[in-house]
């Protein structure tokens, strides 16, 4: 998994599946939210997401009041978001 940042937008390439992926995402976003309250996350091609990443996003939105918008490239991941009721919470949409 690779992660890059441009202004308030984070792009993730590759599958999100390991503890290391979770830690990388967390470190990147924790740094960004020091200055940004509105974050756009482009999950370009990952077909999976770990529960620990979901838990982290959940805290960002509900506790830290971050305005998080997730753009999803994979149809499979989008279906997962719909099945598990993440679409509304994370303003998720298929791109």
């Amino acid at each position: 998994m690779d992660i890059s940042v441009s202004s308030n937008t984070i792009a993730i390439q590759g599958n999100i599946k390991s503890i290391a992926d979770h830690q990388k995402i967390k470190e990147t976003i924790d740094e960004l939210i020091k200055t940004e309250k509105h974050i756009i996350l482009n999950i370009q091609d990952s077909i999976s997401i770990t529960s620990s990443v979901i838990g982290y996003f959940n805290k960002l939105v509900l506790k830290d009041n971050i305005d998080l918008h997730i753009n999803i490239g994979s149809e499979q991941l989008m279906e997962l978001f719909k099945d598990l009721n993440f679409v509304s919470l994370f303003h998720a949409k298929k791109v």
Partner: protein
Amino acid sequence: MQNIEESYTTYQENLALEKELNILRNDYYYKMIDSREVALVDFLYQPLDTLSGDAYTARIIDENRTFYLLVDGMGKGLSASLTAMSATIFINHLIDKMLEHESFSLDILIKESMDFMKPLLLDEEALSIDYILFDSYFAQLEYAKFSMPPFLLEDDKRKIIKIKSNNPPMSKWNKSYKIDRCSVKSINKFLFYSDGMVENSTNDGFVYSKYIVDDFLNAYTKEDIKQSFLSKIAEQEDDITFIFINKLQLNEDTLMQNMTFETSLDAVSKANEWYQNLYADETASIAFNELFMNAYEHGNLGLDTKTKHKLLEDDIYFESLLEYEKDCKKKITVKIYKIKHLHNSYIITKIIDEGKGFDTKMLSAIFRHSQKFNGRGVYVSRKNSMGIYYNYKGNSVLFLNKV
């Protein structure tokens, strides 16, 4: 020294598993729903490790309502297990109190358990959980799904209905939740499961979510789904839990035989011969022999295990049975159904006695310690059928065999 450490570890692991199974309250252990319709309720609980991050519960609320719970703690290991087990313990305790006061409320159950769990959850912890209330009288499902995989339902036209989560995951930060209802009048089959199943890699490089709908459609029993799943994966990657409910079409159209027998050893022989002549299937006959004998000696004659052992030790067992049966006017009814499902046919045999019944929870101990003499008949029956199921009272048993 290493042997001592290993046996201590094994001892602790066995204790932990026994504790887990104690926590998972299952009122449907080897039981069927036998009110307006007959439905088989089956469970698969297969932790990846000793401490499971999954938990489930099945509670009979009253003669028409059943509550099911499925919990999946975030991640793996001790933390996930502590969360799942804590939630399950509290929810069961609350249900016990509600039943004591005859005041079950799904809404209050969810609210109170959320309030209980919030302080326990870590800041970034997300708990996936299904609260399901099944009302067989009104044919209604009431549910609150917190980021669990969709329920799969099959209707009487073999159409699959998916019910998606109506709540995000439970966390320290949730403020509200939603309960929805749907009619299940035309639904014959249900599957509730945790994500360990659908996220498991398959041998062909995909994940099991690709196959679950077709396998569910083709399944008639829990074993069908279990085998379909296991045959597609190289190894289990997470805790696997599912609840499978299948309504049986036991009616005049599917009824093939209906016979009533006296309570006598002579009738036991006649019944066994009759069944063997009907179905040459040896495994089905073995199961029938054992369960009919149980209906005779434990059901109608009311012989408890302790007395039976004493009679056997004293070598007066059969003479005693002949004595007891002299005063017994009770009957044993056998009904046999044949049901077709896709390309397969199933023989469903129901044996009904007029005894007091028994608590099927004792079967749990029997199946875990099969080398003991008690309950060997039931154990053998289970091995020679696709499942055995008792009614709530325990005086009627049903078993299936594939033809």
